[in-house]
């Protein structure tokens, strides 16, 4: 008490006046103690996510995750025998890269955060500011190929201050092709993609991989976001005899495509789509026809992993979310939690969270078991990046009377044998 009273006298003029006015005894009894910790005892962490805008569904779960973390940190964080208060500064990128840059400026230069966390696919502008100003930064929900490419780096060079943990675009294509190969479905694949960076990248990699694996590709090409008719793609796939459709397609586009495909009598055995089926809403928009849709999985509730922060298993974590929000769990929440696990572990390991170099070295030396599995910067062959697993899964209808209509299960683990298979992959005709 004495010490904190003293520091309050030194740090806050307003509180001094208040104490004098209220009398010393009253001031001592007032609950000011926490606020009185000096700046040296306070860790400031910036967190940027896409809470609104076109990609807002990725961050729908994030506010709940942050509340959970805040509750956990309300008594502060003990590092090297010293208690630190933790302040979290949350910012919304609005899915806009320009705003991402100005938020990076604000948090790094003005707010002077000790650590920046970015769970946004367009993290590059903010990460660049961290690299220029020597602020440690951790990002996720961004594949490592664009993480390097965006700012002209490579796995040998890395970045001085910014880090990433996520899976790779090359792995996801291996998983897609591996799953179809194992399914026994005719090797004719119809492809169509959103005309954006991710779609173009995915398209190039997929075409090469399909060729190598002996698949025939029926190309539906890239399409623009405003398009609301897919009869041409449907006709091309029908002419080409496609049994599998794939691509990077947003939910609203896939719903339109699927309606027209059914009208035209296109006979499909597997629909494996990136983006559209990551979230339950993308499947629910198909009504009764959502069962059997397949996509990549990077987090789900049946995984055998648990949080290093609060010991919750993946299943408990998802259940807690569903109980408190009434909404179904979604894949990004695992990474939105894991980024805090990684960040707080690095702060702890640093010995002194106010020392930037120590925090940076702690991130680079981290090998942590998180709710999404192992995040290993220490033994990673790539500088600044910890590669995580990605695998394949399929949506199944929940039994009647369940709270949510569909649930996602792991069906293949081509590049991630450590992830247990939960259900066998089935062609779409088995779901009808």
């Amino acid at each position: 008490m004495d010490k904190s009273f003293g520091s309050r006298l030194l740090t806050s003029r307003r509180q001094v006046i208040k104490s004098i006015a209220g009398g010393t005894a009253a001031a001592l009894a007032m609950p000011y103690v926490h606020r009185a910790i000096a700046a040296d005892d306070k860790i400031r962490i910036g967190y940027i996510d896409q809470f609104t805008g076109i990609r807002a569904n990725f961050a729908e779960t994030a506010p709940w995750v942050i509340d959970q973390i805040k509750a956990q940190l309300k008594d502060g964080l003990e590092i090297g025998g010293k208690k630190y208060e933790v302040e979290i500064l949350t910012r919304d990128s609005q899915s806009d890269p320009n705003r991402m840059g100005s938020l990076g400026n604000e948090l790094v230069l003005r707010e002077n955060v000790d650590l920046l966390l970015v769970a946004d696919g367009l993290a590059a502008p903010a990460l660049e500011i961290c690299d220029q100003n020597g602020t440690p930064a951790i990002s996720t929900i961004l594949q490592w190929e664009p993480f390097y490419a965006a700012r002209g780096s490579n796995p040998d060079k890395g970045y001085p201050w910014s880090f990433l943990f996520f899976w790779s675009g090359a792995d996801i294509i291996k998983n897609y092709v591996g799953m179809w190969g194992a399914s026994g479905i005719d090797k004719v694949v119809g492809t169509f993609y959103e005309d954006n960076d991710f779609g173009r990248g995915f398209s190039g990699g997929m075409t090469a991989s399909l060729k190598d694996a002996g698949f025939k590709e029926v190309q539906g090409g890239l399409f623009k976001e405003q398009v609301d008719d897919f009869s041409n793609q449907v006709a091309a796939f029908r002419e080409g005899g496609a049994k599998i459709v794939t691509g990077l397609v947003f939910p609203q586009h896939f719903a339109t495509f699927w309606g027209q495909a059914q009208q035209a009598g296109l006979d499909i055995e597997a629909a494996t789509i990136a983006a559209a089926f990551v979230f339950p809403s993308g499947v629910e928009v198909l009504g009764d026809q959502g069962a059997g849709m397949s996509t990549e999985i990077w987090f789900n509730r049946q995984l055998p992993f648990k949080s290093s922060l609060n010991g919750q298993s993946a299943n408990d974590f998802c259940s807690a979310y569903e109980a408190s929000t009434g909404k179904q769990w979604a894949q990004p929440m695992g990474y939105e939690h894991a980024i805090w696990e990684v960040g707080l572990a690095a702060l702890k390991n640093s010995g002194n969270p106010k020392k930037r170099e120590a925090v940076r070295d702690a991130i680079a030396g981290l090998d942590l078991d998180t709710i999404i599995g192992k995040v290993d910067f220490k033994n990673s062959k790539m500088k600044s990046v910890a590669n995580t697993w990605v695998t394949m899964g399929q949506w199944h209808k929940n039994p009647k009377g369940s709270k949510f209509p569909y649930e996602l299960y792991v069906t293949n683990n081509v590049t991630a044998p450590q992830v247990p298979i939960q259900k066998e992959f089935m062609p779409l005709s088995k779901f009808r």
Partner: protein
Amino acid sequence: MIWLETIANGILLGGLYALIGLGLGFAFGVMRVVNVAQGDFIVAAAFIGLYLYPWTPVHPILVILPVALIAFGIGILLQRLLINRVLGHDQIPQILLTFGLAIVLRNGMVAWFGANSQSINVGNMRFWGFNFLGMRLGVLPVVVLVIAIVLFAALRFWLNRSRMGRIIRATADDHQVVQLLGVNYRNVYAVAMGLALALSAVAGVLLAMRGSFTPYSGADRLLIAFEVVVIGGLGSFWGMFIGGIVLGVTQLLALKIDPSAGLMYGHIVFFIILILSPQGLSSLFSMKVFRK
């Protein structure tokens, strides 16, 4: 054959586009009001439809009736409470007003309903198809086209034959002279805006059945509506219908040749028509209803 199928699909899509343009064109033809919030009203109607269709008896597609009624009411309120206040020789205030309304509506919908894409489930009808002259067409797009034709014809007939229709046409011609005849043109405007929004609402709900929508879809819808109206000729009825068809067919033919073209060729056709015939296609037919 596959080309014929593409053209047929373009006509089916064009029917919906025409309907999207109809509300905007009607409001402009009668009141010279450019409703910039039209696209967002279309999306709002789709949300209303989304919440009403589980309670719709007989078949979910009938949800267009209650939604149109609600939109009619909203249109009357909108005109009476807001747009009538800023009417005058200067068109800028009402454009700014509806522009502001569009922003409020869009962000309100994001806040209330979230950014997820939604779709109105018309049951299995969405997935039905049939063979026609060797082509394979969808049932729902044909139903949408039929609804569009019926609405165009009904509106035309009503404007030509009913008393209210005559009053609306007279008000469109000269809203000051009709006041000499005892018509309160502000009330007429309110009815016209109600109708315009009701037509948009039907388009919005049908669009949500055919594909899907997000709170952000409004801007694209507005662009289509503008192009339909301008291609067709301002204030012309069947011109607008043909404008929609032209846009739909162009878009699908272009997408067949160049899948990544998006709506670009539709915009190019719009641009060419605007240069060759600034009055729109209707000046070729001179079938105007509202103005000389």
